[in-house]
């Protein structure tokens, strides 16, 4: 019966996808993309990937959509009709798709519990993680400990994106609050934002620190945290928000997150372990794992939150 939901969602995704291909209004496409993302997030929930769902919703339906809209607002909405017939692309796509479908023919069936993918490494993660790491959420333990190095890479990637956006769009600080006139009319928004700002932040921190037990972790928390500040900026103006968190502070925070992560790794090295070997961080290996995961998740959260803000401010402040 989950399969039914799964299939319907896939069907909806397909419709959305085709609509995106056909639609000419870029803003419309953007909204459809947001819906696409939302639908795939639901699909992830159906497929038991709750952490992924959380992230996809926060990213796809959230920040990515906003960035796309900002870009359209900074450029233009209408898509020109392509000049040449897209015959070659169609051919390439067909060939690629055909190849992939050909490849699926020897794949284990969808959901087959005996598939090699589930039997080997993953199986032992599920068995050993509670003992070795003591964290119920296996995704977190794999993410932060077994494959903690990937996550360091991930933080670096997002940091790179921030550096890129800073380089490309810069970060213009608003001296005077020029949107003041517009803001004054947003009574509803302002009051609601006032109520929600602390709630969102608290919720973000909750997600940050409960990644061990449920879906969540540094990345999701970072995005939510940033969302709080985005709401603040929406309600009270960019200038006010920028005064609350100055750009230099954001830079420092973005860097600090990566550095915290790396420092945990180096510290475990100094304590006689391998890079990112958390168990040496405390006397008890499990406690060490906990501490390590806590710290690196903190690093991830800090970097992600500040990077999201850097990117968002970068796009939004581009308007003269």
């Amino acid at each position, binding site marked *: 019966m989950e399969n039914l939901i799964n299939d319907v969602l896939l069907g909806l995704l397909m419709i959305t996808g085709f609509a995106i291909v056909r639609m000419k209004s870029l803003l419309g496409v953007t909204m459809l993309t947001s819906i696409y993302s939302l639908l795939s997030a639901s699909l992830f929930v159906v497929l038991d990937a709750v952490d992924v769902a959380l992230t996809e919703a926060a990213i796809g339906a959230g920040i990515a959509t906003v960035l796309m809209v900002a870009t359209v607002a900074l450029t233009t909405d209408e898509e020109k009709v392509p000049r040449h017939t897209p015959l070659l692309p169609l051919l390439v796509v067909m060939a690629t798709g055909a190849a992939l479908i050909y490849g699926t023919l020897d794949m284990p069936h969808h959901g087959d519990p005996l598939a090699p993918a589930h039997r080997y490494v993953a199986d032992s993660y599920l068995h050993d993680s509670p003992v070795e790491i003591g964290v119920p959420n296996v995704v977190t333990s794999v993410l932060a400990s077994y494959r903690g190095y990937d996550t360091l890479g991930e933080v670096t990637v997002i940091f790179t994106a921030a550096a890129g956006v800073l380089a490309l769009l810069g970060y213009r600080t608003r001296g005077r609050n020029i949107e003041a006139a517009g803001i004054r*009319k947003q009574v*509803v*928004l302002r009051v*609601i934002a006032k*109520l*929600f700002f602390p709630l969102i932040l608290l919720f973000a921190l909750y997600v940050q620190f409960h990644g061990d037990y449920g879906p969540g972790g540094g990345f999701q928390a970072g995005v939510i945290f940033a969302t709080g500040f985005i709401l603040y900026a929406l309600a009270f103006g960019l200038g006010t928000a920028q005064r609350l968190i100055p750009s230099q502070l954001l830079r420092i925070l973005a860097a600090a997150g990566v550095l915290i992560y790396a420092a945990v790794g180096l510290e475990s090295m100094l304590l006689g372990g391998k890079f990112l070997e958390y168990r040496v961080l405390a006397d008890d290996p499990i406690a060490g794992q906990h501490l390590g995961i806590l710290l690196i998740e903190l690093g991830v959260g800090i970097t992600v939150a500040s990077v999201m803000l850097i990117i968002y401010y970068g796009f939004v402040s581009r308007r003269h």
Partner: protein
Amino acid sequence: MDMVLAVLSWSCLLGGAIFLLIGALGVLRFPDFYTRLHAVSVCDTLGAGLVLAGLMLQGGFSLVTVKLLLMFYFMMFTGPTAVHALAQAAMQGKLQAVVDEHEPE
């Protein structure tokens, strides 16, 4: 008692689902943007409320219910705010409304 709860919860859920569907249909059917906003309100209020209530009855008295309650609370604030913001933005974006010319009798 359990039976009553179960029946109550299911009927809440089902009722909520139906209102959600009705809201969605309204969004599809109504002639212009501003009227569609009302249909969305149906979803946001009764539809969502009933579904959440049904779930709360399922969850019994626990932290789950608290979370559902919190969700309900959030939705009651975010829903109208979003709709209001939309309407305001549409107005500022010079989207014309279809307005009935007749004064009420």
